[in-house]
């Protein structure tokens, strides 16, 4: 279930890196916990993000959930389709439900994130 080719934060964001570009979303586990996503508030293109600082907010019917930046860098693209179809995050968290792309300033920050096994262990602890 948990893709091997991604890195993860304990706060349930995933990140996929290609060269110095990182794509960010939330995991299948997170979307199933949050449920009923109605709104995703994301930063504008051009915003400078800092590793582990707040990046945006997901609103579900029940509550708001903070999102954190897995890496530092500049936002170069935002998934605009989520504005009208936020349910894509529930339906397709690893594909159509991606949030944004970041041009990384320090790709070594990726090494501080969890791999698939580490994330699996992390959610088992949260579920226990």
């Amino acid at each position, binding site marked *: 279930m948990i893709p091997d080719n991604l890195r993860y934060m304990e706060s349930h964001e995933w990140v996929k890196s290609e060269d110095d570009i990182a794509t960010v979303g939330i995991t299948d586990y997170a979307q199933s916990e949050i*449920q*009923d996503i*109605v*709104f995703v508030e994301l930063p504008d293109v051009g915003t400078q993000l800092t590793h582990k600082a707040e990046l945006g907010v997901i609103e579900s*019917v*029940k509550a708001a959930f903070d999102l954190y930046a897995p890496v530092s860098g500049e936002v170069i693209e935002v998934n605009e389709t989520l504005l009208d179809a936020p349910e894509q995050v529930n339906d397709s968290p690893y594909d159509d439900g991606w949030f944004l792309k970041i041009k990384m300033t320090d790709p070594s920050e990726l090494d501080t994130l969890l791999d698939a096994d580490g994330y699996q262990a992390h959610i088992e602890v949260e579920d226990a």
Partner: protein
Amino acid sequence: MNRTPLYEVHKSLNAKFTEFGGWEMPLQYSSIVKEHLAVRESAGLFDLSHMGEIDVKGNGAKELVQKLTTNDVNRLSDGQVQYTLLCNENGGIVDDIVIYRHDGDDFTLVVNAANIEKDFTWIKKHNSLGADVIDDSENTTLIALQGPKSIDILNPFVSELDAADISFFRFVVDEVAGIPAAISRTGYTGEIGFELYVKADSAEDLWNVLYPAVIEAGGLPGGLGARDTLRLEAGLRLYGMDMDDDTTPFEAGLSRFVKLDQGDFIGRDALLVQKEKGDLNKKLVGFQMLDRAVARCGNDVFQNGDHIGKVTSGAPSPSLKCNIGFASISPIVGKSIAIEIRGKKHPATIVKVPFI
């Protein structure tokens, strides 16, 4: 934390649980939106066993209830239900409750889960005529069947009776599938529906009778998440959020449940003064967001830069597909307001309640 007699049933249905008023209750089984829409389109089944039931009966029962409540209990006939408020001496709302009148002068007061002890103590404190006041909450289970298909779902299980014949805010004491039950045409969703009171040891039997029928009709079990969005759309206030001990019925927009001419009751003097003065410091209003932001309880409300109050309830409306809520605000001119969410002001407009 307290658990209802249906806790294991909810667990077997993979419910997600939440704490509410000291109770571990199902928040949702599938998705709040699906459960919400099921109630609007077919039916939903809710465990509301956390609610409290306090019997007031015997000599002095009617006088006690009249003294404690803002509505006029003399207007109640046998088999009728009334929404009313318990107020303190300042006119602040102790609880919002429904009163069931049984044969004669026996009453059951159905109270909010978080307020059972507070209300029970309050009622006993004012029981100068020596009525019997009994907290029967632990022995009583409340299951709500709500939605346009609820009459069709219930009818096969009530032999002598057509559920459609029970009028709004009326109840009958009968049986559902052979289980002794008070069948009440009431609810908290804005839909046709019933609230069924049974003995706690019959809870699972009743649930197991109704659950397959609800599923068959295209309905779903509903958790507190859907209950909250349903009541909000229907314009129904929630105690502890939209009103509290420091909010009067007038400030909560509940003046039609205050009968100042019914004789004396606790809080009447203060409410009379507030009514004669005419101007309220705060008033509960409904609002709709004009952008995608979701206002939540506690968000600050502004008009023309002035802080005018706070959001008391707020959520996305699954039926209206916009974001709505209640706010308690000082008197203003016009309908345009701004609500501060995570440090940013978002436009909203005051709208008529109910929202649907």
